[in-house]
């Protein structure tokens, strides 16, 4: 065996023993009894299909909103002066590192029936009755966009930083308008960052647990929440395993597509 692999061995042993083998074993559980019944149940019954559909819909919307909010932010951070960029970084990295639990709790405080936002709107006379923001689709969406936004901002920031500032300047010198420069120069040159951010946010959304569990209040069920219920409450291992297998398959498919598409850029 090659000597340069030697230092990696202890880590690889850990990864195989506590990651790879248990996950493969779980996939084996889903086929217990040699039938595909649990997969039929997961993908055939309306109730569970609905959960998959919910998960997809939320993941797509979260990705879209993260892109809409993340691009301007990443762009500004990458093109402003160093001092402002540092401040921008604090605004992105501080939430990123703050516990998801803390942030989710804070959104409960903000979005609840008697929460900060409803109180302010009622006090200001904008509305008479509190509007439902929590334990519904909107609440889960807001919470998840907040948690995942940094994962969109950082790759986009990186991509914008890589663009030679002389290129958009040249475009401007050649008579392009501000929107023209954006559509014809910035967007194509930062497509890789956009793509990386989108896939990252989408993949993370698919398996998200804490935020939907707390902000969904049992009414918006995503697949990770369903798996947890099946293991901890229903004790239905084979079904949980089948759901996990489907979730894993989706995740890996999306991830593999990313690897394929972003390879040309890597080769540079």
């Amino acid at each position, binding site marked *: 065996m*090659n000597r*340069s*692999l030697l*230092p*990696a061995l202890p*880590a*690889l042993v*850990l*990864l195989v023993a*506590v*990651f*790879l083998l*248990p*996950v493969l074993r*779980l996939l084996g559980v889903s086929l217990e009894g040699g039938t595909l019944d649990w997969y039929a149940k997961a993908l055939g019954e309306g109730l569970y299909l609905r959960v998959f559909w919910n998960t997809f819909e939320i993941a797509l919307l979260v990705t879209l909103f993260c892109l809409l*909010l993340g691009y*301007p932010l990443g*762009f500004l951070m990458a093109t402003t002066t160093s001092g402002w*960029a*540092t401040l921008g*970084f*604090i*605004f*992105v*990295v*501080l939430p990123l*590192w*703050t*516990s998801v639990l*803390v*942030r*989710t*709790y*804070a959104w409960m*405080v903000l979005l609840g029936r*008697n*929460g*900060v936002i409803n109180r302010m709107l009622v006090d200001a006379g904008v509305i008479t009755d509190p509007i439902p923001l929590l334990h519904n689709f909107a609440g889960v969406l807001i919470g998840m966009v*907040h948690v995942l*936004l940094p994962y969109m901002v950082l*790759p986009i920031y*990186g991509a914008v*930083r890589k663009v030679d500032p002389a290129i958009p300047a040249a475009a401007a010198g050649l008579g392009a308008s*501000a*929107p023209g420069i954006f559509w014809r120069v910035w967007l194509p040159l930062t497509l890789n960052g956009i793509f990386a951010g989108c896939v990252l946010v989408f*993949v993370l959304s698919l*398996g*998200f*647990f*804490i935020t939907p569990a*707390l902000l969904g209040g049992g009414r918006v069920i995503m697949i990770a929440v369903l*798996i*947890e219920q099946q*293991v*901890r409450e229903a004790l239905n291992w084979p079904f*949980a395993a089948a759901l*996990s297998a489907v*979730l*894993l398959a989706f*995740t890996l498919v999306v991830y593999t597509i990313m690897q394929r598409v972003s390879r040309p850029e890597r080769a540079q």
Partner: protein
Amino acid sequence: MRPTWSRRLLVAVCALIDFFLMLPLLVVFPISLSSAPYMQFPPPGLSWQWYERYLDDPQWIDSTGRSVYIGGATAFLALALGVPLAFSLVRGRFIGRVLVDRLALAPIIVPTIILSVAVYGLFAKLKLIGTWYGLVVVHTVLAMPFVVLVIAAGLRDFDHSLEQAAEGLGAGRWQTLRRVTLPLLRPSLVSAGLLAFISSFDELVVALFLAGANMTLPKKMFDNIMMEIDPTIAAVSVMQILLVSVVLVLIGRFGRGLRDSVR
């Protein structure tokens, strides 16, 4: 250069987005100082009662202490295993390097819920549920990819001629590693270690399955949020945010700039 109208619009939009990002972090501060016995905004008066309740409750203190040493052990183990792994991946030439690379980063891609359920089954058989070292092992699996990413980035930017210089001046491999390579990687090591610590300190999903009766801080918080929202949780949140701020300052001061690692 005078800002154009499009630039001003961009700055205004970004100010709003930054507000959205910071709002949840800011809102817990007034709540944690509320004198009301339940969640109320704006607070009717100020008091330290929720901080006192946290400090007086052995369950909170125990779970905090447990999370700290589990985080510390995780950071240690993740560095001990992840740094050599990163060296192999960046410097090594062996068959199956791409495969090892994928495996090393897979715990980030595979949803934590799947890992949790999978390991739950294994640990139940091995009677490891509720042990602190069991959690450390799984948290290490989750933290190691971050260590590998940070260290590998540091190694790729490493000026190889410095190691050649050391060798040329008479340093053996081990001396070069100890006297030149590791000291120069120290910023990356600091960042990686703190990142590993925080990733364990904040981890909920695995703890939910594996911690058993031995609460970690995130699990205690989760249970509290599920049962009753009293402002104690806001006080804990404030302390967490302050802790993260301190860690970020430490990284800024002694670590590899986070901005550098985004490329």
